[in-house]
């Protein structure tokens, strides 16, 4: 059974409680209509449910989320996938700032642009690797303090003059990888990252993730892959190892 909820004028506390109570009664699929800024949807849910969100959800969508699949048929706001552990979010639009803060696992796929500090302090452990893919461009401080995970910026349909990422790209990065379709100017890079060419393993990984991405957004994988990518890796796993007098 699919549970449909008309969320017009509904406060987030009531909505999220309704969802949690329904999950306790084994509900597995939800369609939320008339969503308009309700916060914390999907917050802390551990079950593999599916939620379709019609409208713009509020901040901290899927915070601490651990399993569900969310589809957002609109733009997202700030803090999507904040400290998220597992699951999937697909956004048919753009999203705001601080996406995937401290993200520990799962996928965040965004069709268009993303704001400042995307993928900040993402983490990973062995096979648990979070993935963020944005089809458009990103703001400043993208991938700041990244300790793990995969972050991909595609820059599809962008003007030639618009940079694919803002300043301080990858600043403080000490783990994980950022793939960028196209080029970045040297001066926009954080001093803790270096630009490298892709190897076969990178191409295989990208094809896997982008194949899925293209399917969701009706894109042609070959066309997306036809433009060369670059890879950003941290220069050192201990960028601040020599900062201190012991």
């Amino acid at each position: 059974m699919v549970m449909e909820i008309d969320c017009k004028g509904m406060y987030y506390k009531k909505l999220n409680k309704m969802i949690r109570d329904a999950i306790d009664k084994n509900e597995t699929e939800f369609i939320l209509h008339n969503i308009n800024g309700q916060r914390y949807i999907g917050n802390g849910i551990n079950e593999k449910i599916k939620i379709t969100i019609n409208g713009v959800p509020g901040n901290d969508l899927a915070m601490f989320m651990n399993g569900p699949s969310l589809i957002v048929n609109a733009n997202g706001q700030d803090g999507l996938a904040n400290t998220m552990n597992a699951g999937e979010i697909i956004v048919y639009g753009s999203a705001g700032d601080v996406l995937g803060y401290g993200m520990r696992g799962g996928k965040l796929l965004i069709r268009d642009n993303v704001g400042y500090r995307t993928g900040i302090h993402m983490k990973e452990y062995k096979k648990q690797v979070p993935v963020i893919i944005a089809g458009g461009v990103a703001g400043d401080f993208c991938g700041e303090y990244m300790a793990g995970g995969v972050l991909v910026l595609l820059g599809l349909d962008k003007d030639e003059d618009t940079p694919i990422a803002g300043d301080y790209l990858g600043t403080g990065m000490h783990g994980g990888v950022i793939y960028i379709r196209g080029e970045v100017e040297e001066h926009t890079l954080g001093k803790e990252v270096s630009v490298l060419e892709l190897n076969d393993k990178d191409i295989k990984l990208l094809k896997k993730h982008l194949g899925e991405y293209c399917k969701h957004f009706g894109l042609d994988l070959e066309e997306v892959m036809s433009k060369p990518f670059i890879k950003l890796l941290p220069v050192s796993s201990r960028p601040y190892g020599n900062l201190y007098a012991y």
Partner: protein
Amino acid sequence: MMSELPPEFIVKIDYDRCRRCKRCVMNCSFGCMQFKDRVVPEHKNCVACHRCTTFCPESAITITSNELAYKENANWMPEIRKNILKQAQTGGILLTGMGNPKPYQILWDHMLIDACQVTNPSIDPLREPMELRTFIGRKPDRLEFAHNKDGEIDLVTELQPQVKLDVPILFGAMSYGAVSLNVHRALAMAANRSGTLMNTGEGGLHKDLYPYAGNIIVQVASGRFGVHSEYLNTSAMVEIKIGQGAKPGIGGHLPGEKVGEDISKTRMIPVGTDAISPAPHHDIYSIEDLSQLIFAIKEAVDYTKPVSVKISAVHNVAAIASGIVRAGADVVTIDGFKGGTGASPMVIRDNVGIPIELALAAVDQRLRDEGIRNNASIICAGGIRSSGDVAKAIALGADATVIGTAALVAIGCRICQKCYTGNCAWGIATQKPELTRRLDPQVSAQRLSNLLTAWSLELKEILGSLGVNSIESLRGSRERLRGIDLDEQTLKLLGIKPAGVGQ
């Protein structure tokens, strides 16, 4: 570059007594004690952790400070010159551990507690009921009751989640990473035994401690290490760490030396990298943002646990605390500038922040003035050294107090301030297996429990002499404190009268 630093300490071996058992050599984790036919100390490496002197069966070792390492000068003190030499050699930020050691005035020692004589009889705490129980959490503005259909009286007001403490003393936040898993085990066991809470700090919670969930505060800090929905729900309370008394306003780096396989797993960062805690939470740039995180956590725990916000004691602490309470926090934890740390830049630890006594008095007063004191409990941390300090803190307005350094001293810490090196000889601030196994969690838990038992007995003695039979009656009762050797402005800030003034 050659080090020009003179040794800080001189290690003297009484060779007449030494039996060459090499126990000191085995115990020294800083490479000071070496054996070349006989024990030969490398003075430069000594940090005065006193592991060797404690374990020498013949008491043949004495450690003294290297008296004339620097020619006497009241302005250019040895520490100043030592630091300059270190920085000239390395070009680095001076790193240090433990709390602020500078001789700033300790205001606890300038407050005296009242006692009853004749008119209001004191109470014998050993033979009469004496209550230390404390509930932490948001209290309602009023209680409403109604008759139910059976004619009985029911409480109508919906109460917010509370945590029950048998003693108003919690263990401070020390992360798994900064301290060893055995320390976390000891703290959890002791908290369980004594009816109080330990605090995970910001490094996540090892699965071995899950059974102690009812005695654990789980912390959510800017690095979000080990934070997930199961973690949040394996707790009695959740704490958002904004700041720490020893290093207000700055983030932290757990040095890569301490990030082994287990820490890497709990924190989800690569082995050997520095664990970076950003200075701010990047989803909190305002009180409104803080409110957003508080309620994100409340949603994740389904409103079943109080949420605390911990801040450093800084100049504007009272206004900040007011904002925190209005943002929806159930507890405000204030950490004073004498609070400990596993690693902090020395310049921050020794120069930033304000004393907890003043911060506590200011926050309690501000919340009372605004009529929101009941909306949150105040927990006071950073420099609590004895049951006397606890009693004074509660009289100044704290609901409960926190001990970090005192707890570590109870289990062996000698305050040598080398926590950041990962070489702790007492097995506390280290992740090296050969060192962590030196600390027996069972024995340490017993020592921690003993300390809390002793302080509880002393608190009851104080309450008895004050003629009250519960800690609740002392809370915020500044009339029972008097200041000594304090200027008028400080007395005013503390809200207490000078000693010698009656009612």
